[in-house]
């Protein structure tokens, strides 16, 4: 993270705090955080484009800055904990601690009180991302990324493409997303 200033690193960690704090369970898998932060960046380039970047990697778009901030945060080091998982796709879970919940609440109240327009927009975007993607399994989320033409350049190094983009994953998505639609 050497190319990042302390301010940028702090901002990135606060963005992660916001993403975790806005999720219903205050807990997301590493893969969910990475991909939702990716989708957030794509739509809010002007606001947060400089905070972190993505490259093509084994499981699609990957950000070293986000990964390192999640595993070893420099500033918010008591705000979340990492729990390893046997699920090789999810990469483990990140859960807000009680201190993280308190810090998130303070941050949220301050942002709303001060009517900080850009950050309220970021909150709103995170709410949408949670509604759309938190319900997906790791495989389903990757299926979405892998089959979206606009993200093609990020899947060139994938080692799980054949495992993810299958009729079985599509069928589970159909049941979840298109089930009951007449």
């Amino acid at each position, binding site marked *: 993270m050497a190319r990042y200033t302390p301010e940028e690193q702090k901002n990135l960690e606060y963005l992660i705090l916001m993403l975790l704090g806005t999720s219903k369970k205050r807990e997301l898998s590493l893969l969910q955080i990475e991909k939702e932060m990716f989708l957030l960046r794509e*739509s809010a380039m002007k606001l947060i484009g400089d905070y972190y970047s993505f490259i093509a990697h084994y499981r699609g778009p990957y950000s070293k800055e986000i990964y390192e901030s999640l595993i070893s945060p420099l500033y918010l080091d008591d705000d979340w904990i990492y729990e390893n998982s046997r699920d090789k796709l999810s990469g483990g879970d990140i859960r807000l601690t009680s201190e993280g919940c308190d810090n998130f609440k303070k941050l949220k109240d301050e942002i709303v009180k001060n009517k900080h*327009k850009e950050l309220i927009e970021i909150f*709103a975007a995170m709410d*949408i991302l949670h*509604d*759309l993607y938190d319900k997906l399994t790791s495989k389903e989320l990757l299926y979405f990324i892998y089959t*979206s033409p606009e993200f093609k350049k990020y899947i060139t190094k994938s080692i799980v493409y054949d495992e993810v983009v299958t009729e079985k994953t*599509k069928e589970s998505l159909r049941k979840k997303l298109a089930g009951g*639609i007449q």
Partner: protein
Amino acid sequence: MKSNIKTHQKIVADSTFYLLFYADLSDCDSLHKIIMAFDFYVGNKIKDELKNHISKDDVFSKRILDVSQDVNFIQILKGFYQFLQREFPTYSNWIKDGEFEAIGISYHLNRMGRLRFLIIDDNDARRFVEKELNTLHQFLIRTPAFLCVSCKNGHFDKAFVVKILNNIKVSIEAGKSPLRLEINGWKKYIKPLIDSLPEENG
């Protein structure tokens, strides 16, 4: 008017709501009365879809609140909807950018704790909100139901609301498709709403 209620309830509506008054009913006075009673928010896409009408409407320009956004909410929502369309043939119909924009503005206002209603009449856009956007489900309403709720809450008198709802029928009979309704839809959906409105005292 039933009362002089001053309200700052925040409402987001897609272009179909405004076009009902501009194009289908040719009734700007009613639209003006409604937008004076609430705070209505629009973005550039919705304004673009209404440009032929609002360019001549000073009340709209003065009263409606503009929302400019640095986050591209349309991109987030449309990206997911396009995925549904690619993968599942049941999502064959298109949703307009103005509808995605209205949804994005609603999330924004909701974060500020101010959203009261998201008015959407298009069935595909409603289905998208109902199925995929859990946060907004509770705010979603159709134009006729919005008018009836506003009547019951004292924002408009019964005669005003009934006149609009009956004029929707007149418009259908004249060959238009207000709110994309046909006469059977009016009988099935709007007539019971009219019947549900309480009689006014005095």
